[in-house]
């Protein structure tokens, strides 16, 4: 039961990360391949502040996420106005640097031996893990809701415009560099919040948790679900993480000797589904969000259509 709650909480974190990636990449066109790095700064930042400096958990999460936001801002300042490939490489590199630093700076981070134990908040209450899961759920629902609001807002239209044609957006009076930089910093900061909230889930932090596989899992989910659709990220995580890591791993009657093959089988299936999606539904399972303003067709309003 506890394991199920853990898996479910983690899935919510993945949904949140994929949703933020939807804003970064789906809306603003920024290919962030360093998701795990920003999440990891939040995770380890929270861990260190909480364990070493006795900072209360929620304050530690807030402080650590500022660290993620600052890293995002500085990176944006350096590379965001360069090509997409440069951004991709730089974000991936940053996440590798963060992982390496966490291994090497063992005085602060505990190195490969790890860092623990981070307890759930809410004292000795029974079912703290459930309460915490509900807390994550609320945060993630708020995130999905905010991101839907964002697409329909002036800022959202501006982001789509910048993604479509940055030069044109600039000539229409948008300070595109600054907009992208702030959106990137804020969303990276929120990845840090999710990282901080993952600290009590994992309880014990080890550098292995910062492997790039988290980044790829989130990307696969986003591409599967549809990067241009607000619920694409959520559906993508349900299909990947929800289906395999929770349903199959928990309930499928897999004989013990085959169980070790399951992770490989999972990767195989991800790959297969991803290829199918790219071939047959390149915009993802949910496709693209259409522009929001809808009017009835011209004929219905009695306007004759020109021929």
């Amino acid at each position, binding site marked *: 039961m506890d394991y199920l709650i853990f898996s479910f909480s983690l899935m919510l974190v993945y949904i949140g990360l994929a949703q933020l990636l939807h804003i970064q990449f789906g809306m603003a066109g920024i290919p962030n391949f360093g998701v795990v790095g920003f999440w990891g700064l939040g995770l380890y930042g929270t861990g260190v502040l909480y364990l070493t400096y006795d900072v209360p958990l929620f304050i530690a999460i807030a402080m650590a996420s500022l660290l993620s936001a600052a890293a995002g801002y500085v990176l944006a300042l350096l590379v965001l106005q360069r090509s997409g490939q440069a951004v991709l490489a730089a974000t991936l590199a940053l996440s590798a640097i963060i992982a390496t630093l966490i291994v090497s700076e063992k005085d602060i981070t505990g190195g490969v031996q790890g860092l623990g134990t981070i307890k759930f908040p809410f004292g000795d209450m029974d079912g703290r893990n459930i309460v915490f899961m509900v807390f994550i759920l609320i945060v993630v629902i708020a995130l999905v809701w905010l991101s839907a609001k964002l697409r329909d807002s002036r800022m959202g*239209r501006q982001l789509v415009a910048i993604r479509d044609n940055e030069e044109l957006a600039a*000539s229409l009076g*948008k300070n595109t560099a600054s907009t992208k930089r702030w959106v990137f910093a804020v969303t990276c900061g929120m990845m840090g919040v999710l990282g901080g909230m993952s600290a009590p889930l994992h309880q014990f932090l080890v550098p292995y948790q910062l492997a790039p596989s988290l980044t790829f899992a989130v990307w696969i989910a986003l591409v599967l679900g549809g990067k241009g659709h607000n619920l694409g990220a959520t559906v993508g995580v349900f299909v990947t993480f929800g289906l395999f890591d929770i349903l199959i791993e928990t309930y499928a009657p897999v004989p013990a000797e085959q169980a070790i093959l399951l992770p490989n089988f999972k990767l195989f299936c991800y790959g297969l589904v991803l290829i199918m999606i790219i071939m047959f539904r390149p915009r993802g399972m949910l496709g693209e969000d259409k522009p929001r303003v809808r009017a009835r067709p011209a004929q219905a309003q009695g306007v004759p259509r020109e021929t």
Partner: protein
Amino acid sequence: MFEARNMCSGYGEMAVLKDISFSVKDEIFAVLGANGAGKTTLLKTLARLLPVQSGDLTLDGSDVSATPAYSMPGAGVAYVPQEGNVFPDLSVLENLSIGGRTGHRSKAEKLDEVFALFPRLKERRSQAAGSLSGGEGQMLAVGRALMQDPQVLLLDEPSAGLSPLFVDTLFTSIADTRRDRGLTIVLAEQNAVKTLEIADRVMVLSLGEMHLLRDRADLSMSDITAAYHI
């Protein structure tokens, strides 16, 4: 309006426009030239999307040679690029609204005006701009520029890819807009014949250099052809 003195500009270190000097008054100022002559480069420089490498560029007397592109709409300049001039993922209405925050008139008023000029856009207002035809896209781009209530309109080959009939309509509406609004227009074109019908002054570029700058009245088609082939 715009005034350039010995202006050079181009991409990165490479100079495409060399030593260009002119001033745009309250008029339709046409920029003609063959493919690759530098018309787009000139308009992008005026829109501040390309750096002024040397020389001066002023707008209403103040130096704009280092002004960022995003400050130009506020200074009354609207730019319609030659290609990629709409946001394909935004609807027609969103495209029109995105730049329309300059000027003192209300958005609804400006929108009515644009729809009166291009009724086709009104019919398609909720459609994604990416699904418009080439001509409709061109109308949208011009309409969006007008939403900015500009004092200067930079138009890069608005007639490219349009049917001759529609080119007539477009040029008529450009001339009308100029008359109704007293708007200055810098018009880059390949279509010399049509351009001469509405332009007040004509500049001919060839290989990045200016070869002719004259009032239309003192100009014949053969002057232009001669300048084209320098």
